[in-house]
């Protein structure tokens, strides 16, 4: 596929990196020469310097032959105009990032007038992720839905409270609806067999049928968390949206924002939330606002460092579940080690959502894990696929991938060697980035 990406910020870069490694022809348009140079030197893509809303630039990028355009500059209007031009040139698929929530409600304008097939709002996508994490009774670092929510993947940290530390996976007496698909240890992601051992500090990726998470709490050794009170630090768009979404579901929300004028505006939008004007990095303020009795703490200011430190502080002061927003991807690998329960990164969330859309078709859904080192792919099994109608143990899957779940006519199967995939089933596969192509070949069934 020939894909034009406009804007080589973090999101554009991540998408370009993933798509070019999958042998798509990627053309990146970036207006900043320095950024363009760095993309040129680190990715196997064609780079063009220019404005993505300029017809000439787009023509130079070969928009006439393009199969898809992904507009992810930081300016909504540029993204919209780029998609509009793409519509004129008959580009089949158009994706735009839009940060201004005012635009997002204008659905007909987007879809019909501008011809945008998929709009992603990073703030709303991140908010959904935060709310999902908060509402789950399990204290997970990440939750992803598959097969229309029938299967969920949890990322759990193994802490001292877990009874499974230093035990082998086969010793666990799980009922059938749970599978540890991967263990993340330090930098490495391991696909464990039954012999795999769990050690302190591991992160486990577990696929489970929806609502069967009682087992998960056994693994962490913690009581289920029921969130009633949430404190939000930072009146950013994500903060506001989170407060809105949570309070709609009957959860008590408090929002702390340091800027007085901003507070006044926020109050208008959040009638059911207590807005506090103050410095959230101040421990006295947190304590006087009852941090020790809050169940969930969400730090979403514009500063990564503040978010992390205050989230740690909140955890220390007794908050049950703390989530921090971090914009710099480089920090993420160490964060979960230091005690924050979950980290959200709007850019990775956006990139992930766009990639999911790009590959839609036979692939229904996809999630990037650990900065793209691994992926979870949901596949609709095709009749031509090589893996159909034979026991999985004979399927010859590559060594760094595992089938996590099969959804057969609305029934979730956590598979064993003797299970069989039939056409029309949805299959959820966990695979390391190195094996993606092999997996695709097996599932696609056609030679490329």
């Amino acid at each position, binding site marked *: 596929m020939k894909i034009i990406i406009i804007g080589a910020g973090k999101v554009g870069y991540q998408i370009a990196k993933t798509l070019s*490694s999958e042998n798509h022809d990627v053309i990146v348009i970036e207006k900043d020469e320095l950024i363009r140079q760095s993309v040129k*030197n680190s*990715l*196997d893509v*064609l780079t063009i310097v220019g404005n993505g809303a300029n017809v000439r630039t787009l023509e130079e990028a070969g928009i006439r032959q393009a199969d898809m355009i992904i507009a992810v500059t930081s300016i909504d209007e540029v993204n919209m105009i780029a998609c509009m031009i793409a519509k004129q040139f008959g580009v089949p698929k158009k994706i735009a990032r839009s940060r201004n929530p005012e635009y997002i409600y204008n659905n007909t304008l987007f879809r019909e007038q501008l011809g945008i097939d998929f709009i992603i709002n990073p703030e709303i996508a991140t908010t959904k992720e935060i709310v999902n994490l908060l509402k789950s009774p399990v204290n997970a670092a990440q939750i992803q839905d598959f097969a229309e929510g029938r299967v969920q993947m949890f990322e759990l940290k193994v802490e001292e409270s877990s009874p499974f530390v230093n035990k082998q996976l086969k010793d666990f007496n799980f009922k059938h609806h749970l599978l540890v698909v991967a263990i993340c240890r330090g930098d490495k992601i391991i696909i464990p067999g039954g012999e795999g051992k769990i050690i302190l500090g591991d992160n486990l990726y577990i696929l489970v049928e929806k609502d069967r998470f009682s087992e998960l709490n056994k693994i962490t050794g913690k009581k289920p968390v029921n969130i009633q009170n949430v404190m939000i630090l930072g009146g950013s768009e994500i903060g506001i949206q989170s407060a809105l979404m949570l309070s709609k579901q009957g959860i008590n929300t408090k929002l702390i924002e340091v800027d007085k004028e901003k507070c006044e505006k926020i109050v208008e939008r959040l009638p059911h939330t207590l807005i506090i004007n103050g410095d959230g990095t101040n421990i006295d303020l947190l304590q006087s606002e009852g941090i020790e009795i809050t169940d969930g703490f969400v730090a979403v200011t514009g500063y990564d460092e503040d978010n992390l430190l205050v989230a740690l502080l909140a955890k220390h002061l007794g908050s049950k579940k703390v989530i921090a927003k971090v914009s710099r991807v480089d920090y993420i690998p160490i964060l979960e080690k230091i005690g924050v329960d979950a980290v959200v990164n709007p850019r990775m969330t956006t990139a992930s959502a766009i990639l999911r859309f790009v590959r839609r078709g036979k692939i229904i859904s996809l999630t990037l894990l650990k900065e793209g080192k691994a992926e979870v792919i949901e596949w609709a099994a095709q009749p031509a696929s090589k893996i159909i109608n034979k026991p999985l143990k004979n399927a010859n899957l590559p060594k760094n991938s595992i089938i996590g779940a099969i959804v057969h006519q609305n029934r979730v199967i956590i598979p064993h060697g003797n299970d069989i995939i039939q056409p029309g089933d949805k299959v959820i596969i966990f695979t390391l980035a190195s094996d993606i192509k092999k997996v695709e070949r097996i599932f696609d069934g056609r030679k490329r």
Partner: protein
Amino acid sequence: MKYKIVLNTIGNILFFLGLSIIFPLIYAIYYQEQVINAFILSIIITTVSGLLLRKFFSSKEPIGPKEGFAIATFGWISAAGFGTLPFLFAGTFSNFIDAYFEAMSGFTTTGATVLTAIEGNPHAILFWRDQIQWLGGMGIIVLVVAILPALGVGGMQLFKSEVPGPDPDKLKPRIKETAKLLWLVYIIISALEVACLYFSGMSLFDALTHMFGTMPTGGFTPRNLSVGAYNNPIFETIIIIFMFTAGVNFTLHYKVLHGNVKSLIKNREFLFYSGVVLISIIAVTTELRLYIYNSFFTALRYASFQVVSIATTTGFVTADYNIWPAFSKSVLLILMFIGGCAGSTGGAIKNIRIILLLKQAYRELYKLVHPQAVTPIRLGGKTVSEEVIRNITGFFFLYVLIFVTCTFIMSALGLDILSAAASVAATLGNVGPALGLAGPTHNYAFIPDLGKITLIFCMLLGRLEIYTVLILVIPEFWKK
């Protein structure tokens, strides 16, 4: 520095190089020549060395900029090293330095020879000597990038370290596709030249070997008297056209083959290059008509061939320009420095750099008048980044510095000033025949070993455009 991936990739280069020795072997078998065993042995040694390197240093690490430079430089050094095997086994040269000089001269498309008698060597040896130019022309590393599965960004690093020009273009989003297309265009034009020469009466062997000399702007021929041996204006015309073509950026050729002829006329470098060639032909023709030849057409015939041959850094010879008047000789000497276009198979400084250097020089003068002026350098309507300008001025300085240093070395070894300077200019610019003692009717055999080693180094520096090689000399490069 990741040694494993460097050695692994060099293994790949050697493996493919070894396979390419099959072509001269076919000629050896066809002509029933004594050297069959020499070629079989060379194939085995080269491919097996390549395979061993590949096997023992398998690595999945990505190729970074450092590795790219190391692979290019050591890849070329070792390719030339293994390229000497057929010469050594067949006994073409008695000592290694001569064989290495000839191989490096071939790979770098210089065309400077140390063979005193070319005719009389077995066909297979002559074929191999010419074929290595063709491999080196578009580039052995570009070939490896085109053949090897997904090198990804690493491919770009390799590509940049070999393709001439300050900022190589990509034709396609993926570097592998770009490399494939460039080789395809190269093969198409090469085939066209073979066809033209063959159908105008050259034997297939001569047509192939002359194409091997023309397309990479090399200059080796299987004849003692070079192209002059045929004394055939039709051959000369064909070769002039193809030499000129080979001196043009191959991305432009691709665009033209794709029906975009306008891009050729719009390209500033192409226009400048054509202008330089045209003016030089007119100037030299005029002088030759006045002082040497009686007829205008004879003057034009020799002047145009020699000017195009030197300007594109090919180095074919139809006339002994050593005996031409001083002005014509200095035109040729200056052309040795300018060379072809970026992204072509031509050598030397390249027209694009000359254009930008001129613009930069003018800008400095302009700035003296308007010190506050904001004056970006534009080329064909696009602003050239200061980074590129800095890169080019640095390149030019290093080019001159190397030229001066090596000229000192050559004169210290006893060469007269003209021969010393011209031999360095002709090897650094990958031209071939120089002026004076190493002129068109002579060769480089008389130069002492130390001088040959100096010139070998010049050829490598010239082909890989200095930076790629010199960066390895900086201690900073090897620090962890």
